[in-house]
């Protein structure tokens, strides 16, 4: 009788807690009202769940897609070139990727500004020198930096992948979607229609349009279909947003096991102590 509120609470919370633990990293963020947003496609990412791991060959393919396609407009300013060692790039490969870019160097003896090739210690160099330049080259809308894009969107990796593969033709757009006045939705000049974008209008042209657009370098790579490239680059961006995810989940297992033992022991000790006092606690 005394403990009934707790039991009721337990009954309510237990299934939810178990579900949350089982689903692990795949727990979707709480849905925040987004009008007519379409739920993203659920992908079985290797990094989903309690035992989720990054697929490093996939991340390297994704890096290649980023470098050859996305990097033309999108920065990755929070990631350093040295970080790429974590996904299996050699120092020579890292130096090659970094060396293609230029960064501001120390002033020379005359005090004139200089530039030098980027080094592993540098962060990914932005494609545009400043926001104004980025806006000027992109119809007035600066392309967002991608370092945290997977964590900065509801639906996370599923959303980014869905967006990349969610473009529809103008004709289909008119048929499927309505604007705020309830009329068929027509993208304006320089705009595109995308199922998963909030409001279904996006300023980014479809970035991955044909199979084989990127020629995967690594042996054993799957065919570079649009779908595969989209998945690979999304996985890479998931890593870029959360490079310590694997370490986190691994440590989590140890911590949870320890805590289970600790809690079990404490329960046993408490029961033992309680035995001495009749009818208490």
């Amino acid at each position, binding site marked *: 009788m005394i403990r009934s*509120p*707790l039991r009721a609470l337990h009954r309510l919370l237990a299934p939810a807690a178990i579900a949350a633990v089982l689903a692990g990293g795949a727990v979707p963020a709480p849905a*925040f009202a987004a009008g007519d947003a379409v739920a993203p496609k659920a992908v079985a990412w290797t990094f989903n769940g309690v035992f989720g791991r990054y697929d490093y060959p996939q991340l390297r393919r994704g890096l290649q897609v980023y470098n050859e396609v996305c990097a033309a407009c999108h920065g990755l300013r929070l990631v350093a070139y040295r970080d790429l060692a974590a996904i299996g790039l050699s120092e020579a490969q890292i130096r090659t990727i970094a060396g293609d870019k230029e960064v501001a160097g120390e002033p020379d003896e005359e005090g004139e500004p200089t530039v030098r090739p980027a080094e592993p210690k540098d962060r990914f160099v932005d494609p545009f020198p400043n926001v104004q330049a980025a806006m000027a080259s992109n119809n007035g809308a600066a392309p967002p930096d991608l370092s945290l894009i997977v*964590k900065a969107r509801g639906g996370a990796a599923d959303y980014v992948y869905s967006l990349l593969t969610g473009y529809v033709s103008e004709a289909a757009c008119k048929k499927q979607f309505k604007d705020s006045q309830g009329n068929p939705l027509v993208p304006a000049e320089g705009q595109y229609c995308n199922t998963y974008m909030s409001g279904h209008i996006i300023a980014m042209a479809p970035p991955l349009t044909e199979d084989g657009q990127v020629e995967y370098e690594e042996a054993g790579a799957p065919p570079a279909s649009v779908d595969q490239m989209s998945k690979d680059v999304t996985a890479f961006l998931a890593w870029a947003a959360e*490079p310590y995810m694997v370490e986190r989940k691994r440590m989590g297992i140890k911590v949870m096991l320890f*805590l289970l033992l600790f809690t079990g022991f404490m329960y046993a000790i408490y029961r033992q102590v309680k035995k001495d006092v009749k009818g208490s*606690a």
Partner: protein
Amino acid sequence: MSTEAQGAPRNRTLKWIDDRMPIVSMTEHALYYPVPRNLNYLWNFGSLAGLSLIIMIVTGIVLSMHYTPHTDYAFDSVERIMRDVNYGWLIRYVHMNGGSMFFIVVYLHIFRGLYYGSFKTPRELLWWLGVVILFLMMATAFMGYVLPWGQMSFWAAKVITSMVGAVPLIGESLTELLWGGFTVDNPTLNRFYSLHYLLPFVILGVVVLHIWALHTVKANNPLGIDMKGPQDSIDFHPYYTTKDLFGTGVFLLVFAAFVFYAPNYLGHPDNYIQADPLKTPPHIVPEWYFLPYYTILRSFTDDWWLFQILLGWWGMEAKLAGVLAMAGAVAVLFVLPWLDTSRVRSAKFRPVYRVFFWLFVIDCLILGWIGAQPAEPPWTSIGQWATLWYFAHFLVILPLVSRVERPRPLPHSISQPVLGGGAAAAAAPMEASR
């Protein structure tokens, strides 16, 4: 039991110290002080709140060693912690989720107090100190959320600080003082950082007072009747130390599940976008633990009939009414001991109050749910009815229920709850004897 453990220490060195500063007998008091023998698991949340505060202070101090309180660097310095500081991701996720854990624990602690009448004589001061802690926690949490300088940080700061402007006459100057300028900017971030570091130690001080008051009046219990002698109590150690450690284990399991497997579940994705004063997010939402208050704030619109009847006719602004109601939602707890005048503490013996208690819990959940919805029909009017119920519960229902209700007979004592079935035993529900 080992009541003889209390008193002066026998060891000569310890005695020498104790004669000059009774720190040894104080420790003994803390360990062996008498606690009702019938506490249930809901009494675990007090110690868990203390643990949460310590976790927050320790992780917060470490984070402050790496954080840069400047609008140009704050966001990047948090990301540097996540990427380049050794185990920085762990410390930051513990701190980030620790705030939520702290509020969960404290809310359960408060609802426990409401259910078992822990705010009633002689525990009014103890209860007040708890309400002060809640106010301080809310201020600390709000300012802490601003520090990462993400989109939600910035816009939450903007919305909440702008409320101060609703204060008559001095509102504008007060807002500028809070901002340190004419909008939320670098000076705002700097003073929030300073206060976010200061307030936890103020909370710690009030917690000491809270525990002092607790040890003076002793813990309430599920029966809500006073301890009448040693047969009703047991020593805190080892009975409740072991029980609290077991509770700690369960709590840390839940905490760790969030930190390691869903660290961003309770956060908002927009806070991973750097603050942009020129881009308003479509929906500005506070952290989950502020959602009920946010609903109360937003319920006061110019066209709400209740607002018009009560306040609007003499020219009060809806915005000011909302701000006052939001603060009043917590402040009403201060006067709770005089609103609920029933002489029986525990809801166990109050059949009518028990029903309204659970309705109140549901009402708080509804307020929280509406807080996450956009401010448009039908959410607005659901929120307004829930707001009305919230205040009606305290100001109308509780005073009425405590007058009308016929409580069930109380047991004779804690140690003999089964023997007290007769009405004769229920003579003195809240005796002053201590």
